[in-house]
């Protein structure tokens, strides 16, 4: 990490809800490839900060620059397409879909085919053996049918839509495996245990192929062992080249996993630096222990 390039720049962002100033001129940078912790007491404005970054709310003033582009003021789906993905503090999966379908919605973010392509199956390509549907089908009792479909696909060609669907399914399963929930693929999201739901949210966010992944208290409600496992997952995500912004209440946990920490209190940034520095910062100690801030 010799040359640290800035991936995300939160520049003087203020966000007001009527009289409530949820964010008050907050500025911080996020470097390529790091894990940045965003901490602060309840109501400090952490989630609001995510909302301002991902287009859920538009900042009252200031701007968010991501990867050289100003993203504040853009629509949430546009911001997602430019490479920011997130999870939600209060889990917001699509409860009626299966786990796999949830992740597929994420992969759709990178798909090109829309209604005409799905309807007419155009454009088509011939002779891509590995992309033919059901090619790697198991040799079960239904073999001849699979064979038939396979030769039909060879004859008529495979549409781009089909190719995308196949690739998406493969990728989604890989991601679910990566997040440790591959066995839940065909379960309905609503029926998953709480921990798997949290992990599924991460898999779904990763499916959109983000450059920056924002995790809003992904370990909330976990026991210590589960928390450690999750932190390992977060490090693994970082090692694949994704920059991570992590909101987490548990100070000790944040210290262990993050490269840098930004501390918010009452919508203002009160500290920004390496974990050890932040831990010893008197303002941070005061904020966390509830001592009235003298400064």
């Amino acid at each position, binding site marked *: 990490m010799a040359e640290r390039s800035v991936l995300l720049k939160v520049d003087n962002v203020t966000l007001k809800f009527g009289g409530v100033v949820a964010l008050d001129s907050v500025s911080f940078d996020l470097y390529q490839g790091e894990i940045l912790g965003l901490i602060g007491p309840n109501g400090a404005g952490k989630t609001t900060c995510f909302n301002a970054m991902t287009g859920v709310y538009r900042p009252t003033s200031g701007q968010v620059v991501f990867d050289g582009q100003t993203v504040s003021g853009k629509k949430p789906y546009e911001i997602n397409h430019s490479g920011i993905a997130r999870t939600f503090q209060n889990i917001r999966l*699509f409860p009626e879909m299966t786990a796999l379908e949830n992740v597929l919605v994420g992969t759709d*973010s990178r798909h090109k085919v829309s209604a005409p392509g*799905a309807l007419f199956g155009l454009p088509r390509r011939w002779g891509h053996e590995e992309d033919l549907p059901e090619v790697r089908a198991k040799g079960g009792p239904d073999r001849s049918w699979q064979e038939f479909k396979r030769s039909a696909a060879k004859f008529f060609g495979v549409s781009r839509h089909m190719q995308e669907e196949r690739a998406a399914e493969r990728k989604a399963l890989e991601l679910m495996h990566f997040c440790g929930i591959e066995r839940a693929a065909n379960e309905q999201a609503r029926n998953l245990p709480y921990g798997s739901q949290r992990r599924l949210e991460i898999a779904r966010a990763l499916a959109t192929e983000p450059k920056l992944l924002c995790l809003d208290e992904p370990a909330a409600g976990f026991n210590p062992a589960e928390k450690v496992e999750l932190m390992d997952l977060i490090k693994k995500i970082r090692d694949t080249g994704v920059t991570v912004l992590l909101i987490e209440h548990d100070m000790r946990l944040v210290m262990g996993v993050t490269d840098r920490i930004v501390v918010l209190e009452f919508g203002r940034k009160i500290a920004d630096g390496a974990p050890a520095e932040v831990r010893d910062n008197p303002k941070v100690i005061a904020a966390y222990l509830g001592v009235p801030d003298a400064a």
Partner: protein
Amino acid sequence: MTANENTVTKKKKRSFADRWNGLPGWSRFFWIMGGVIFLFYLPELGNIPGTNLEIPGLGFLRTDVGVGGSDWDSILFRCAVFVLIALGLNVVVGLAGLLDLGYVGFFAIGAYSVALFGSQQSPVVKLLRANFDLAPDWALAWSWCILLAIVLTMFSGVLLGWPTLRLRGDYLAIVTLGFGEIIRIIARNSTITGGPDGITAIPGPEGAPNAQNKYFSILDQKWWYWLALVAVLVVILAVRRLENSRVGRSWLAIREDEDAAAVMGVHGFKFKLWAFAIGAAIGGLSGLLFASQQAFIDPSQFNVNLSILFVAMVVVGGAGNMAGAALGAILLTYLPERLRSLGALEFLPERFQDPAEFRYLLFGLAMVVVMILRPQGLLPSKRRARELKDRAQEVPVNG
């Protein structure tokens, strides 16, 4: 709690859908082919084609058995057209979750596009002839009218959707309701659409209505039914492809959590607009079939009641499930006719004995009964049924 729920679902009997999905591909294929053949056989229902033999019992289902019953083939045709409408509206209401109360507008635009451009009597055709130096018997060929109807309805779907799809829920319903009325009122008050007198001599596949027509004649409606049936089958295939694609997933995601979907990169507006355009095109197609078969349309055939009726068909049958929507359409078209030919409606006030009128009574009753006993519809989509249940639980008990 969740573990408990899981064991409960495992113990339950395998549902029809599970069993169906468990069948091998070829077996499903033959079942479907059998079903399709049966649908094509329906006009002959009760008879064995090519012979004088009858299959006892089946003939009882026909609407032309009793005294004063209606022609079975035209009832079948009407069922098919309404199924088509229900399938189209199901895309909008059931799949994308947008309440459209002005669907009759698209039905009307489809009907008027074949009427205005295909009929020898239409003011538009006369105007075009006069201005563009065309042959004195020129009119747009029926096959081109299909394309025109689809293009025009899709365009009007986008035109209506563009400003209104930013609205949610009730607001959208009200604006679309207005749209349906606007189309009817324009058709009524403009001279170019034939005004309240409507348009006659609307062509069909064999050209302008004519006593010499071999297949699509006024006397024998069988071919009209088969034509509409082909349209229905094509639409079912098309909608299925959409449902199982990125588009269908996006619709479902929007229905479940629009904001979360947006953050996951789903361009909600675009896919809602697609739902509107596709639904509109299907509505237009059914309007075209309706107008061609009738050979005559006027604005009074496209009033708001019809819109409500369409929504009722989808909701009673089961929104989000094509089989459900189709069932709703069939029941509420077929039952009044069958009941009348049984003489079962005699006790009703005269006004309601006409199936067209009685239908509204039946709709009202069916709506009330279904909403009380089975709010998710007769054949609901599994997902929608659970969504509905969730929403019901969110409502405070002491509201």
